């Protein structure tokens, strides 16, 4: 039986190499003005 199942294939440290292109959306514009939600931003280049 497999004890560990990994959900994602990308690793964050790989994104360091590319640096930030800055094209992504400004976080709080999607749904809120009162909380800073960076965590669920989508990368424009990954689309």
């Amino acid at each position, binding site marked *: *039986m497999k*004890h*560990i*199942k*990994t*959900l*994602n*294939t*990308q*690793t*964050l*440290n790989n*994104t*360091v190499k*590319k*640096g*930030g292109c*800055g*094209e*992504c*959306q*400004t*976080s*709080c*514009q*999607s*749904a*809120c*003005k*009162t*909380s*800073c*939600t*960076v*965590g*669920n*931003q*989508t*990368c*424009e280049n*990954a*689309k």
Partner: protein
Amino acid sequence: MIHQYQNNGYNIVLDVNSGAVHVVDQEAYDVIEVLNRMNEDHTVETLKSPETAEALKKELGEKYSEKDLLDILEAVTELTEQGRLFTKDIYESFIDVVKQRKTVVKALCLHIAHDCNLACKYCFAEEGEYHGRRALMSYEVGKKALDFLIANSGTRRNLEVDFFGGEPLMNWQVVKDLVAYGREQEKLHDKHFRFTLTTNGVLLNDEVQEFVNKEMDNVVISLDGRKEVNDQMRPFRNGKGSYDLIVPKFQKLAESRNQEKYYIRGTFTRNNLDFSKDVEHFADLGFKQMSIEPVVGDDTEPYAIQKEDLPQIFEEYDKLAKFLIEREKSGRGFNFFHFMIDLEGGPCVSKRLSGCGSGTEYLAVTPWEISTHVISL
């Protein structure tokens, strides 16, 4: 750095520095917990050392078989080798790079109207007036703001403009004129404006809806959930609740946008710490894109959330997660903004280190002037 937790029948292990998310069985959960307690900075070498295997057997040998423990240790070592467990924090050195980068302005929040037709009790804008006199943004100020954005956006192509208030529909003609101006300018400067509108819906009508559907990338519509919850905090100036007037309009708008590119967005307060019921209410009303956020306000306000409320709030998010899964399974799923996490194409390190951009890349413009006043934090 490893963060692990159990939720809704799942054992989740998050390797913070790589962003890897693992679902594990109870045995692996316990093994990782012990390993992490032993040494937070494990490397492939330390994991492979006989001392580690011995320590593991000593701690968990009575609970699990030796074979299982060693199998799991091997799997953990393999993942560490791949950079998916016990990953080192290599980001500290990038903080200065990010801090020193030349920023451009990517987005503006236009306070189209410092005025409002509702008198929400928790309004950080003092019923739309932002602690000052009532004012509407003139077309001239708005135009200069768009010019400023284009001029300071560098090579960034997608520019975001939020029509915000107060209530922006109280200055609707200026919104329409600014969109027209933006569309004309974007062609000249090879830019693309993404307009969004945040509205309480009171003045929403067919004409507004048609324009919004043609021009706005996103619409944020404000409702707090159940009628009694909404009407307690979001009354008109005469004290009457707003729910009955706005809900049918919001339902119509959401349908007309094919249930996409909008958010119905509520605020929860100490009066509705059971806010998962309000999200449920949104879903029952047929909305598919939703968000609900904790109120921001002075601690002395009766509606302010207190520290002792946190356990209940955490529980509500768990209830909400279960509810969302049930709905999804029954074919009536919906999106909850704060649960939408793209594990594969999420924000890069640079974005995580630079944050939301408020005050640097994202500025607010009042009817009077461009301001670095940060309204979102």
